[in-house]
């Protein structure tokens, strides 16, 4: 009820401001272009508080400008001694009372919204057949990557979160090492990812990410977590429920599709236990368990970026495999040479690995 009134009141103003602010930032990441209910609520609070604050600034500015223009010494005379006024109880009351009223205007939606956004009571609601009615994603943050587990569906992915649109998605956040913070600016935010406890909240995704220029929303780590904090990005694909279900089914297939092409097959061998043993840290099946040492690569070929922020092509992938420290200082992935008895990988081997990894896909 209250939310309805708030939205209705602010609608006209918001539209105007949206046009004005459209130049501010990219829709993949800007909080000023909300793409979900949570971000929209937060944006409404931003507009409401901005209006109140603008009012304060205008009042202060008027008194301020008048005072410094009217009472300059050049106007008042060099020797003029002003009357030594002590104060005014009436005025003191006025500028105590008015701010309190303004704060009440802000306090009511603040308290309402604080409880509203923290309400995860429907998270565990189950349908008659025992399945949850809402999607829950377990997020584990690690130096410097993100794991996304869908416990109900029994699948795991990393670095790229895939979610259905137009429904609440619940998140359980925990860190595998040190404190991080989970933030998708244009969809709503943010919640810290602590090492000692699970934090829970929800977001809704009201827009399909395919409508965006880059095809994904940008997610960030917002808490300083070491040298590569700035590079600890993830991406979000929001798709409609039907497409999401298809994706889940594809992920649930235990056996990945057969690798095609000689080069890619060679890459698979290199990747495996008899080659460089990449697979001891990186799972390649979405149906695997959680707690991987490195990101699950089942969807690698479908991703938008390499290592969360590099352009998604074989060139960046090969650079990354050769020298991960160069691209994400402080991350835990070993240099390729150290897995190859100290010898750098040949161009051919790199090409093979790249071909194999780019072929890992669950999308049609």
């Amino acid at each position, binding site marked *: 009820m209250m939310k309805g009134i708030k939205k209705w009141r602010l609608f006209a103003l918001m539209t105007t401001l949206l046009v004005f602010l459209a130049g501010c*930032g990219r829709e993949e990441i800007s909080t000023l272009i909300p793409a979900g209910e949570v971000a929209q609520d937060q944006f409404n609070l931003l507009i409401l508080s901005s209006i109140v604050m603008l009012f304060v600034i205008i009042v202060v500015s008027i008194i301020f400008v008048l005072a410094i223009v009217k009472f300059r010494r050049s106007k008042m005379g060099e020797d003029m001694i002003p009357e030594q006024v002590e104060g005014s109880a009436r005025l*003191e009351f006025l500028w105590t009372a008015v701010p309190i009223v303004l704060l009440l205007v802000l306090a009511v939606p603040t308290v309402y919204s604080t409880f509203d956004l923290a309400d995860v009571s429907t998270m565990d609601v189950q349908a008659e057949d025992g399945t949850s009615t809402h999607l829950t994603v377990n997020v584990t943050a690690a130096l410097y990557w993100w794991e996304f587990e869908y416990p109900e569906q029994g699948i795991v992915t990393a670095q790229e979160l895939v979610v259905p649109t137009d429904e609440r998605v619940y998140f359980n956040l925990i860190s595998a090492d040190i404190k991080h913070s989970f933030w998708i600016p244009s969809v709503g935010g943010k919640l810290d990812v602590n090492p000692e406890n699970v934090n829970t909240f929800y977001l809704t995704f009201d827009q399909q990410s395919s409508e965006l220029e880059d095809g994904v929303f940008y997610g960030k780590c917002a808490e300083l977590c070491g040298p590569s904090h700035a590079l600890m990005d993830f991406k979000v694909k929001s798709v409609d429920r039907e497409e999401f279900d298809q994706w889940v089914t594809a992920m649930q297939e235990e056996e990945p599709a057969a690798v095609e092409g000689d080069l890619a097959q060679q890459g698979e061998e290199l990747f495996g236990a008899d080659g460089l043993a990449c697979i001891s840290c990186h799972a390649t099946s979405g149906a695997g368990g959680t707690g991987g040492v490195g990101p699950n690569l089942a969807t690698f070929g479908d991703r938008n970026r390499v290592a969360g922020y590099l352009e998604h092509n074989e060139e960046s992938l090969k650079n990354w495999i050769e020298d991960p420290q160069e691209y994400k200082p402080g991350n835990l992935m070993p240099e390729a040479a150290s897995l190859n008895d100290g010898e750098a990988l040949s161009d051919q081997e790199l090409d093979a690995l790249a071909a194999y990894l780019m072929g890992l896909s669950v999308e049609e």
Partner: protein
Amino acid sequence: MSSIAQKKGFGATIWDFMTTVDHKKIAILYLISGGFFFLVGGIEAMLIRIQLAKAGNDFLSAGTYNEIITMHGTTMIFLAAMPILLAFMNAIMPLQIGARDVAFPFLNSLGFWLFFFGGIFLNLSWFMGGAPDAGWTNYASLALASEGKGIDFYSLGLTISGFGTLIAGINFLVTIINMRAPGMTYMRMPLFTWTTFVASALILLAFPPLTVGLFFMVFDRMFDSNFFAVEMGGNTIIWEHLFWIFGHPEVYILILPAFGIFSEIFAIFSRKRLFGYTALVFATILIGFYGFMVWAHHMFTVGLGPTANAVFALATMIIAVPTGIKIFNWLLTIWGGNISFTVPMIYAVAFIPSFVAGGVTGVMQAIAPLDYQLHDSYFIVAHFHYVIVGGVVLAILAGTHLYWPKMFGTMLSEKLGKWTFWFFFIGFHLTFFIQHFLGLMGMPRRVYTFGADQGWDLFNAISSAGAVLMAIGIIILLVNVVMTTIKNERVGNDPWGDGRTLEWAIPSPPPFYNFAQTPLVRGLDTFWIEKMEGNKKGMIFAEPLGDIHMPNNSFIPFVISLGMFIASFGALYFLDDDKPWALPVLIIGLLITFGSMLVRSLKDDLGFHITKAELLEDAKGGKTDGH
């Protein structure tokens, strides 16, 4: 004073400052070392803005960048802003209440040297294996994971300098309670003294939680205790609470004295009594009180739950009320006044819109659900720079111009001062205004680089350009200081012509005993009252001229602090197997400290007397040796 110093020769002057217990000289020490650290912190700020001037810049490496942001924040808060404010408190507050010195001159000196050695120790980390890199907030999980000695430098350095600050706070509290001149009731105290009083109380209550937190940190890192080690059942959130229980009042420790300086300036240069003095005093006390009730608003996203978030959101909003009271009382002070736009007044006038802008974004962030978006983004970076630069640093610059003649007996150039102001002020808004929008556009804080595909390039470039203007402003200020010192045109008691409080009734700089006869205070703005009634002496006296008892200079505070400094290196390397000398160094350092304390305790130091004859001689224009 400086004419005496010139006669003494350079070495003797240095010795004089190393042993002084005179609050005015200690103020100069605070100003010089605080100013030095301000420049260091400023250089670090410039490196940050160079790195962020364009997308994907590789001017600084990721690790170095984290060290620089950590040291920038730590240096600016602990080693620049606070000491410079302590300089003004030391220089002015005893004069404002008509005292001959602070209550504990020896401790005053000890406080300074502890701060100084702590600050030097912290900055030596740059040359001894790497600076701290977990942010000035030093959140525990990252701090425990940090390799190298940086975090140990941070914990030990801040512990030592924190002792110094705590000592200073206690000293000021006792001074203001006990040493006010006859007639100087609490409600006649100048507002700068009031804010010093409240800020000192905050220091007294806020620094112990920090010290506790730092002790836990030292023990966790050096002796493998598990206060914050999650895998052993520790909890990192405890650090966040301890840090912010200190950290939020710390903001008010900085801003309240700034408010005090501006209150003095508004009254002086409007030639008008402070409007609503009583309201200003109570607003100050209220802000100090509320300052302890809001720390968790730094932790809205930690996951404390909606009840805690809502309570702390409302508590935070309430602070806007006393702050608003202050703003309007200042506006009404200049309203109907006779405003002279000297350099201090320009800063004070510019402070109002700058600080209001910082204040309103503070209220916006008090709205917890909105803060989920703003927290740890560039919006918060913009907010706290608006408050700290737009409030505290503008006050420091204003105070430097205002009190320079009282501290050094000569006036900074008004012309160069105005140049500094315009460069700094325009640069400040250029740098930080745009950062609000960077935050709203999704840019997290503390990122060493950003991609060209995030849409943040232009605003970051503008922000960096603004930083250059600020740097130019500070360079002009340095030129101003040098030129003023060389010219050395002496000024009289009341160089601004409209002084209202007791410090303007005595020579600039004052004699080392401040007041030959203790003044009698007849009301608020006591010097103004005497001036308006045509009293040529500027004050009436509460006592006849007589002998004055003064404390002796002492080298012991320096030695006590030096011992702590040496012991810290022992503690730092204590656990390294390849450094067997660490333990002896630790022991020697502590022996020096406790040994000198023992000497201080056992040796009687009764001070000395200035005789009435000497005072009369001095009044005639002769010189008394100030020891």
